[in-house]
């Protein structure tokens, strides 16, 4: 008996690995006990279920995405600090090779798929319907399904850490390394299933927001009157729809190789590992633009608002967005120039890669011209936007260097590359999402985040960023490869590595300031009573903060781009206030527990596949089918919110 128990503990719980894992187990257990305890003590279970787990309201789904993204930023950040701690000094033994591999794999995967993706989806959800004058997204129920698939996919991935072992073949998970022969543990399966499940959710989100933007705009809002953030979401959705299927296929085939004995990506039996690399990057490159386009959208909104000027060159902004979405679909080979595809292939993709720089440059100049002679206010969203511009410009320049195929043979997989993509991902995506979070936070929660603490966070994070990543360009040119867990003392890399690690700690402190800022502001943050704390330009600022759950009591008729701004200048705000005789009954989608349960079933089924416990996999899949079926027989999926109720709410909000 005790023998079996010990066996179980060692194989699945990895207790033979020592205090680090015990400590994590204890922490996780305490956290769970804490959460359950608080919910029970304050009798909040019902509230949790009714208001959150079953919600189909895009604003609440957005908030849940935001919370998940911040938690994952924390987990990915801790991973990053561990990696940098190991690299701080030569010959270090803080982590061994196996742990280092696991940690850079989970760090990369989490940051891209479970931090950046939910962060952009958070803003999609919170902002898009309000900006286009809609009451919800096109398919609110599907939206909930998307969220729960993301959530349980991320949970499945994260649980590998304490049950069975983390994946360790890099976030790109190339075969043959990721094939069964070289990587027998369950970690890779966790990677494949976690991403696959959340990926289904992402495709659904892409479809949902594409339909929302094309079909649900308020009357009068032609495409060319749409706010630029909404435009950027449209671009990102098109890319999601066309790029994610390639990932789905790549992961599914690799999974078949691992669990069903096929040979799609093995060298024996006619398989070809290079095809995985190809499929992965057909998704992978568009993916980096999927996460950065919405950030561009945020910057466009923020620059116009905080410079109090109309965005410079709106039409060129839109066309460069579209150009970026299309061109970035034709550049994927720049991730594997060294695979040996020959000069003709490499030349084509090198030129296409450099071409993406042109529309991106157009956008940067438009932001600068918008600020030119504007009356700029340096609030937090604007500070992050200003910090983005030089950071992204350097990242873009080093990107063009990497796109020079022959030169890439020198930098490929070196710290030069690491510095480049962190510069664009952090400087573009993270800065952008933080700017967006600060900007729309009052709209979500009804209060502003504290400026003073936010400035500390900003400076720590930015100074830390440069101290951390600038030395890495030099390290790369000096020959330091990525994914090295240890290096000898006589390479001349010591000082730069130590400096880089110090920078990483400074960024960590910056993150802690953000946490402190949120906690402090919940109590003491400036309340937003007007609904328009930044003197905004677009429709969402015409609503109270937070917006009532039906958003618009009366759907506005849009006559202009930046309509709210124009109405304010001309003293016509009244036109967007509801008049009682115009308020009608509103059809609202009903809450449903099925999306959550479907997520649970996906989780159970995925877990079964990870360990090849087929009975569990089948049970999970059966659950998924049942939830689909139950939805097909649900006829009453809407309810009617009577006009009197709406009027009551509007009166209590002081709008009538």
């Amino acid at each position, binding site marked *: 008996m005790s023998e079996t128990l010990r066996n179980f503990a060692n194989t699945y719980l990895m207790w033979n690995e020592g205090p680090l894992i015990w400590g994590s187990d204890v922490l996780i257990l305490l956290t769970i006990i804490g959460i359950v305890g608080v919910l029970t003590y304050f009798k909040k279970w019902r509230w949790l279920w009714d208001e959150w787990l079953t919600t189909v309201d895009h604003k609440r789904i957005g908030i849940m995405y935001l919370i998940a993204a911040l938690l994952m930023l924390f987990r990915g950040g801790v991973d990053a600090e561990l990696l940098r701690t190991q690299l701080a000094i030569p010959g270090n033994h803080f982590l061994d090779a196996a742990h280092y591999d696991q940690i850079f794999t989970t760090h990369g995967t989490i940051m891209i798929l479970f931090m950046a993706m939910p962060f952009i989806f958070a803003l999609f959800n919170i902002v898009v319907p309000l900006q286009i004058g809609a009451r919800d997204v096109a398919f609110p129920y599907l939206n909930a399904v998307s969220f729960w698939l993301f959530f349980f996919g991320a949970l499945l991935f994260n649980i590998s850490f304490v049950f069975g072992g983390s994946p360790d073949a890099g976030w790109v998970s190339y075969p043959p390394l990721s094939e069964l022969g070289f990587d027998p543990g369950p970690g890779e399966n966790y990677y494949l299933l976690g991403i696959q499940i959340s990926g289904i959710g992402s495709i659904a989100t892409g479809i949902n927001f594409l339909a929302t933007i094309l079909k649900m705009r308020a009357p009068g809002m032609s495409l060319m009157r749409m706010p630029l953030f909404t435009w950027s979401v449209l671009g990102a959705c098109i890319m999601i729809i066309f790029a994610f299927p390639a990932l789905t296929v790549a992961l599914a085939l690799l999974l078949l190789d691992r669990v069903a004995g096929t040979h799609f990506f093995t060298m024996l039996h006619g398989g070809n590992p290079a095809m995985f690399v190809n499929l992965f990057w057909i998704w992978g490159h568009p993916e980096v633009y999927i996460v950065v386009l919405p950030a561009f959208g945020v910057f466009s909104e923020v620059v116009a608002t905080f410079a109090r000027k109309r965005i410079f060159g709106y039409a060129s902004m839109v066309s460069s967005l579209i150009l970026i979405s299309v061109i970035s679909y034709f550049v994927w080979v720049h991730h594997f120039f060294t695979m040996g595809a020959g000069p003709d*292939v490499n030349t084509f993709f090198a030129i296409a890669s450099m071409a993406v720089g042109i529309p991106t440059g157009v956008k940067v100049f438009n932001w600068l011209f918008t600020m030119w002679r504007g009356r700029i206010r340096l609030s937090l969203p604007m500070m992050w936007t200003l910090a983005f511009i030089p950071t992204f410009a350097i990242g873009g320049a080093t990107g063009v260097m990497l796109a020079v195929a022959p030169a890439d043979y020198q930098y490929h997989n070196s710290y030069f590359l690491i510095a480049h993509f962190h510069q664009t991902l952090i400087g573009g995506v993270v800065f952008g999402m933080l700017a967006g979070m600060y900007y729309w936070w009052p709209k979500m929660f009804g209060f502003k985040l504290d400026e003073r603490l936010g400035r500390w966070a900003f400076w720590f994070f930015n100074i830390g960023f440069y101290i951390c990543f600038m030395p890495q360009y030099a390290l790369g040119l000096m020959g330091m490869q990525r994914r090295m867990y240890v290096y000898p003392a006589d390479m001349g890399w010591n000082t730069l590595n130590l400096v880089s690690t110090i920078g990483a700690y400074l960024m960590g402190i910056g993150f802690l300031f953000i946490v402190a800022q949120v906690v402090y502001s919940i109590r003491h943050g400036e309340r937003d009573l007007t609904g328009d704390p930044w003197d905004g330009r677009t429709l969402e600022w015409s609503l109270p903060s937070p917006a009532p759950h039906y958003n618009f009591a009366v759907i506005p008729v849009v006559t202009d781009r930046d309509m709210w701004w124009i109405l304010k200048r001309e003293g016509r705000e009244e036109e967007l206030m509801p008049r009682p005789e115009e308020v009608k009954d509103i059809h609202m989608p009903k809450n449903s527990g099925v999306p959550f349960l479907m997520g649970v079933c996906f989780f159970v089924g995925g877990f079964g596949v990870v360990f090849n416990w087929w009975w569990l996999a089948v049970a999970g899949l059966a659950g998924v089918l049942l939830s689909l079926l139950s939805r097909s027989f649900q006829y009453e999926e809407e309810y009617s919110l009577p006009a009197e109720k709406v009027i009551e709410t509007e009166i209590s909000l002081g709008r009538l």
Partner: protein
Amino acid sequence: MATHETGAASGSGAAPRHAHSGDGHSAGKYVLGYVASLVLTAIAFGLAFTHTLTPSPLVLVLLVLAGFQILVQLFFFMHVTEGNGPAFHSVAILLGFVFTFAVVLMSMWIMTFSSQVA
């Protein structure tokens, strides 16, 4: 979606839903499409499993079958010929074709090196 009103225009709630009642997509059409796609898949699998063809003609045949599969999807399930929706429907289909062909043809182009090194 062509028959739906936008939420805004109808002044109603969230989603355009349950509209299809009178547009007459008969079940027969779906069954036919489903069977056709199964048959096409079965042929492709059969050819790949039994090694009746040498690689290059096999790839060609598989590509043609895949092309038919796309047509089945478009005509039987997505009803491309029926809607009279706005222009972006055509743009979307066109874009889809561009991306599909780009991915398939360019992947083959990129992968030619492996036959050279093999």
